[in-house]
């Protein structure tokens, strides 16, 4: 097995046992990134990575290392990284050198991890295919004609192709879970407020949440340990103690109550995907879990609810991109209005403009009650469905995406792509933690199993996922040639 196929946990052990140095590890990954043709990276930070690797080797030599010292990783290009370009996949921020670190970046620096670069993504995280990126689409390593999903498509493709041992992602409507599913890796969206949003470029502030994209649940637990926690710089961060997410990975899941929402197995779900998901559920049954049918009756309204709430929030968040203080400014503006208008029109891509306009329409006088307020009320109903379900079950299971990875360019109209988000949006609207884990293959492409837990039950989700990964090897399978 090549060094690049090792998990984070195995690399930690390898560094500790001096099987390789952190510099060697970093050079190995940088070489893989540079020879890859997936377009998974927007920026490669090789000089910084090697300097951080040398520092990490010193720390290890002096026995001053922490849990993840010297582990290489990549950041989704939505996390501000001091002195390094942070584009959010947009022409608007193509020249933006972040003047400070996001809290997630700060924490990983403090723990002496090694940043290899910044990964490609849908522009401002708006998209499910990675095709809205200013830097072009990312290719799925399982089939390069296919999309890796989005918006964290670069992070997911990079982990799947073993260009990095783990990557960060963000999930506003499924942007960690869906690309993880389509690329055959493990992705965790924690409870809203678990990880600081400070310095994470905002798309929809009441929905955005960062999380790890890894090979295994054990790795996700290790990374979550490193980045979770209260942050006074984020007013929506939860003041709640961080547990050791690795502590309960080996707990038995005998007696676990799994709920299968009938709305997640309805029309539109690919038969082969449904088969893989149900086979995975049977594995849990064989481990002593109890499966029951449940209903989340309002989850079918998740798409219209999300596609009002998220654009409303983004229309406000993206108003700061005005060509005045940072980012793109048009050439020779003739007056202030022209500066705003042309900077934003030339700087934003089509999908971002569409969502800004929908948001401004839904928030404008005369339409607020009918759209935004209505959506916020339905959001309450969607959340209440889960509250009711969690009185009798421990975890919701179902598909992540209705299909396996789709062809690049397959979706020509925006609404048809929105419809594919049906299974992931509800967890964001409710603020619940969700995961995607590799569950098998259909048509030669990976299929993810989605698990949604109750608030703050990340440990439970990681435990369930880890137990599944002890008796299956889907998470160990890689695209050809790796």
């Amino acid at each position: 097995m090549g060094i690049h196929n090792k998990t984070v946990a195995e690399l930690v052990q390898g560094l500790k046992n001096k099987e390789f140095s952190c510099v060697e590890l970093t050079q190995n990954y940088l070489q893989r990134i540079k020879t890859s043709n997936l377009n998974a990276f927007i920026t490669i930070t090789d000089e910084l990575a090697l300097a951080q690797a040398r520092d990490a080797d010193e720390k290890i030599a002096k026995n001053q290392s922490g849990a993840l010292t010297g582990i290489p990783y990549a950041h989704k290009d939505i996390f501000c990284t001091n002195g390094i370009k942070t584009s959010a996949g947009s022409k608007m921020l193509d020249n933006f050198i972040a003047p400070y670190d996001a809290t997630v970046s700060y924490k990983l620096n403090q723990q002496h991890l090694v940043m290899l670069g910044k990964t490609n993504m849908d522009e401002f995280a708006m998209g499910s295919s990675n095709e809205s990126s200013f830097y072009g689409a990312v290719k799925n390593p399982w089939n390069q004609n296919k999309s890796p999903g989005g918006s964290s498509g670069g992070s997911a493709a990079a982990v799947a192709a073993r260009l990095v041992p783990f990557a960060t992602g963000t999930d506003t409507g499924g942007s960690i879970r869906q690309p993880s599913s389509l690329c055959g890796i493990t992705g965790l969206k924690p409870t809203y407020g678990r990880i600081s949003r400070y310095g994470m470029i905002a798309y929809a502030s009441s929905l955005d949440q960062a999380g790890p994209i890894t090979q295994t649940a054990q790795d996700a637990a290790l990374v979550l340990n490193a980045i979770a926690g209260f942050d006074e710089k984020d007013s929506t961060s939860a003041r709640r103690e961080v547990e050791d997410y690795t502590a309960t990975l080996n707990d038995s899941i005998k007696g676990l109550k799994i709920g299968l929402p009938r709305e997640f197995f309805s029309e539109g779900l690919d038969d082969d995907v449904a088969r893989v998901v149900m086979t995975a559920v049977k594995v849990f049954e064989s481990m002593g879990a109890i499966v029951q049918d449940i209903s989340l009756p309002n989850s079918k309204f998740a798409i219209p609810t999300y596609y009002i709430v998220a654009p409303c929030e983004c229309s406000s968040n993206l108003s700061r991109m005005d060509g005045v203080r940072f980012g793109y400014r048009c050439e020779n503006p003739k007056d202030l209005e022209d500066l705003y208008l042309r900077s934003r029109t030339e700087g934003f891509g089509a999908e971002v403009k569409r969502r800004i306009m929908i948001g401004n329409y839904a928030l404008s006088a005369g339409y607020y009650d009918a759209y935004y307020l209505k959506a916020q009320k339905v959001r309450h109903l969607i959340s209440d469905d889960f509250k009711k379900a969690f009185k009798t079950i421990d975890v919701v299971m179902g598909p992540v995406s209705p299909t396996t990875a789709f062809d690049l360019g397959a979706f020509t109209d925006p609404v048809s792509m929105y419809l594919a988000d049906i299974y992931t949006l509800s967890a964001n609207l409710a603020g619940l933690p969700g995961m995607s884990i590799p569950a098998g293959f259909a048509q030669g492409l990976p299929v993810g199993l989605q698990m949604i837990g109750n608030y703050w039950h990340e440990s439970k989700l990681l435990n369930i996922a880890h137990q599944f990964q002890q008796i299956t090897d889907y998470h160990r399978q890689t695209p050809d040639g790796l």
Partner: protein
Amino acid sequence: MIDNAQLKQIAHLSKLSVDDSAFESSAQDLNNILALAQQLSQINTDEITPMAHPLHMTQRLREDEVKEQNHSNRFQSIAPKTGNQHYLVPTVIE
């Protein structure tokens, strides 16, 4: 449904311009999204309170004390145009 006049108004509010050639397709895209949103009108939400925050948190209060240093030079170093510690834009008032 969004008509041409409304599309102009939304674009104006958004500080975006829509090309004449893309006017129809833009209006069509937005109307398709609003048609999707119309599904929400089927649900009776008379007694439901809107959900503004997933954890129903309220804004935290803190002591009013200075913690951050002034980084204006660093922040202005990435601005498109500055002068005398101000962000410069085209003249608004002669």
